[in-house]
């Protein structure tokens, strides 16, 4: 057992010191708009259960500029988070087809195709397609 182990100082501002650390913190910061997004959905679930009047009230709340701005930020943050998440997948879990490894770009684009598919499916489910007929 060492008598006096050296403990390097670690200031709370460590993440400002390197571009890679700053990028990491930016990615981690996307959790804040995500929390607002979850809060908006919880409020929406409550309003939907309360009746039509409270649902209309909720729609008016959604239309306020600051709510629109924060939910727009949540959309951008979710796309940024998705991008970092999708790029990780082929590195963490490379898929093999026979003796060949699937190229990373293919796995990343397949995941983006999944996002697009979910958007289209939800748009269809919410009646977006019929709106133009």
């Amino acid at each position, binding site marked *: 057992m060492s008598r006096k182990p050296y403990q390097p100082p*670690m200031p*709370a501002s460590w*993440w400002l010191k390197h571009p890679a650390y700053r990028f990491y*913190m930016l990615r*981690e910061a996307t*959790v804040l708009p*995500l*929390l607002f*997004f*979850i809060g*908006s*959905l*919880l409020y*929406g*679930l*409550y309003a*939907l*259960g*309360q009746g*039509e009047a409270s*649902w*209309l009230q909720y*729609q008016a709340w*959604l*239309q306020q500029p600051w709510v*629109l701005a924060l*939910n*727009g930020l*949540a*959309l951008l943050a*979710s*796309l940024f*988070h*998705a991008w970092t*998440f*999708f790029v990780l997948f082929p590195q963490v879990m490379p898929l093999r087809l026979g003796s060949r490894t699937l190229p990373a770009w293919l796995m990343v684009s397949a*995941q983006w195709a*999944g*996002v697009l598919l*979910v*958007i289209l*499916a*939800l*748009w269809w*489910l*919410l*009646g*977006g397609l*019929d*709106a133009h007929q």
Partner: protein
Amino acid sequence: MRINKQPPPQTTPRRSDEPIWWSLFSAGGVCVAMLVPAIALLVLLGIPLGLVSAEQLSYQRLHALVFHPLGLGVVLAVIVLPLFHAMHRIHHGLHDLQLAHGRLAKWLCYGSAVLLSSLALSLWLTSG
């Protein structure tokens, strides 16, 4: 005196609970990456900005969609799992920023995820 002292008999090692939180975080991460862009774009922005038409998306229709039995899966995928994902990241973020570490921060983070998830589930169950 014996040269090699035997280590004391080992008691059962304390199991880490991290796999539970990490699994929920990880499952939530998939949901966040795959589903949150669509919900944010089409519901939270799409309804107020008119990307989905208000006539098509009447209160009755949306109510029927959300409180359909399959809607429970949607609540799990877009509220409950993302909550555990987010609170796990906040727990570790507080540690990274040296704002809080230790038991209390952990209890507060995962406790609020559990509380808010129960709120979401009870809202869904009682309003259906």
